């Protein structure tokens, strides 16, 4: 009697989360795999969802990667965008965290406030401010600065000219700034938790700031750097919200401004509305992501992250 009451209580605590897991993660995964085997298009579910298309979508996908220049461009863009943005995120976050360590608490708060702004800002507003910044006319901030300095003589459309590097630079810059704050905050708090004795000891021995960083601070927060890097890698691979508007507003070239995750979204919800192909490309991404995610947890040591509960009666 008492046991059943207790398990009922347990269920009451867990049901909402389990429902969300099933309805918004488990089912959609199954559905995405299912759709990838149908010729679904234009969201015409009644007409297409019951037709079995075999591996056709996957075949089309690989054929397109090999032969369609615009899809090749997307593939190449992903291969450049993810590692470069990741490097900026991790190194930028680390640099800010270390410099933060050497300045006072009040300046710390100011810097944190500024760098969290890109992450907190509504995505539409964030995209808009960079739209103005990189705008291809004279109202573009970058153009006006460079023209005044005499470096360029006419307005340059940064995301559309100098392909592919122009488009890549713009999306990497805009996304890079969003991710830096994550590394900065996690690593700042990690640096702060290093015992002061270590730092005092190093200072007594006459260590410079640079030596202090290299020999004491960075080795002690290695685990946290790893954590930031792997987490950020997964998030860069799968998120596309901060790139979507730059492409749809034509600030950057469509092919060289579209990483893989955005390509999946664009296939399903804009232009061609080819959900079968979108699902196949999505499955591809989910598999890569799941493997990387699993490796991440292995590397970080999952058992370290999970402690036993307290409070058993």
């Amino acid at each position, binding site marked *: 009697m008492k046991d059943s009451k207790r398990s009922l209580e347990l269920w009451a*605590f867990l049901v909402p989360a389990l429902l969300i897991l099933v309805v918004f993660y488990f089912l*959609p995964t*199954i559905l995405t795999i299912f759709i990838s085997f149908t010729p679904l298009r234009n969201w015409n579910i009644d007409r297409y969802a019951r037709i079995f298309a075999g591996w056709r979508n996957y075949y089309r996908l690989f054929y397109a990667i090999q032969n369609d220049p615009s899809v090749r461009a997307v593939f190449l863009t992903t291969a450049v965008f993810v590692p470069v943005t990741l490097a900026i995120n991790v190194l930028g976050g680390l640099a800010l965290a270390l410099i933060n360590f050497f300045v*006072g608490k009040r300046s710390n708060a100011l810097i944190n406030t500024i760098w969290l702004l890109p992450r*907190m800002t509504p995505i539409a507003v964030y995209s808009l401010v960079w739209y103005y910044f990189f705008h291809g006319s004279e109202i573009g901030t970058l153009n006006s600065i460079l023209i005044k300095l005499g470096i360029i003589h006419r307005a340059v459309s940064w995301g559309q000219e100098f392909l592919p590097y122009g488009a890549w630079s713009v999306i990497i810059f805009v996304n890079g700034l969003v991710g830096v704050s994550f590394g900065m905050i996690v690593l700042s708090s990690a640096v702060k938790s290093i015992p002061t004795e270590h730092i005092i000891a190093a200072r007594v021995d006459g260590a410079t700031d640079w030596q202090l960083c290299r020999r004491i601070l960075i080795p002690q927060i290695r685990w946290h750097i790893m954590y930031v890097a792997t987490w950020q890698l997964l998030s860069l691979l799968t998120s596309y919200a901060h790139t979507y508007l730059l492409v749809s507003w034509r600030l950057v070239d469509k092919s060289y401004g579209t990483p893989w995750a955005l390509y999946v979204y664009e296939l399903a919800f804009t232009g061609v509305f080819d959900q079968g192909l979108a699902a196949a490309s999505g499955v591809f991404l989910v598999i890569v*992501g799941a493997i990387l995610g699993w490796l991440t947890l292995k590397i970080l040591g999952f058992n370290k992250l999970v402690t036993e509960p*307290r409070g058993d009666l």
Partner: protein
Amino acid sequence: MVTGDVETKGRIKEIFYLGVLLALSAPILVVFVLLVISSFGNQMATNFDFSAFRFTLKNWRLLFEGRMAITGGVRENIWLHFLSTAVVAGGVAFLTTFVGALTGYAISRIKFKGRKILLLSMLLIHALPGSVLIVGVYFLYRVLMPQNLVFIRYFSFFYVILARAALEVPLSVWLMKGFFDLLPWETEWSALVDGASRFLVWRKILLPLIKPGIVAVLIFGFLAGWQDLIYVRTFLIDRTLATFIESNLETEMAYMPLLAAAATFYLLPTIVFYISSQQLLFKVYAGGIRR
């Protein structure tokens, strides 16, 4: 800062470092300041050219009257968009916090079969944002969609809130578990021994104790819902401020300051919440990590 007799941080260097930090941060501040200035101008200020720039409130007036250039004679009710955005954000905030508080408690305090798997999947899902599954989520949306046109509108609100909250649930569970872990087990032990149900203890004793954590997760959820673009543009039938800005970009040059005003308007609540709860939010972002 001086610790004991040993100076661990140099004072002159500190000013130098601060200078470097501010120089690095300058572009972010500049673009936002230019946006706000432009919203009060007769033309965009983004090119630093103030020769023909005049201060005016016209953009804001036109915005609140709903007279955007692109819509011609049709008026856009900006307050309605504001309301839809707030409904979505509020819904996401409430749902993520509620689910997080329930499940976070169970994971923190109760030993049950599958606890480790649940926590593992939460971590994995948190690492791998659910937005990759949006094709499947939209398929489900179309299958569940009611026939009645009036219902569809409400259904889309309901669904977008659930779907968007689902993205934040793993983090909120993780954070809430962390907050519960900090409370000593003795706080609830005596009540449980006296025969109170876990639910009662959770509601009457524990929730009041982690109020700051709840507020932090609420604000975090609100900002997540408020900033969203992809989910509202995909699922929601009504417009929010995000989709309003998305679709009104291609106005003529002359009307660009009006859009800047709309963006500034959209940005305001974020800034207010953000400034007022910074310290709490830093904890949220630094959290989600335990060694």
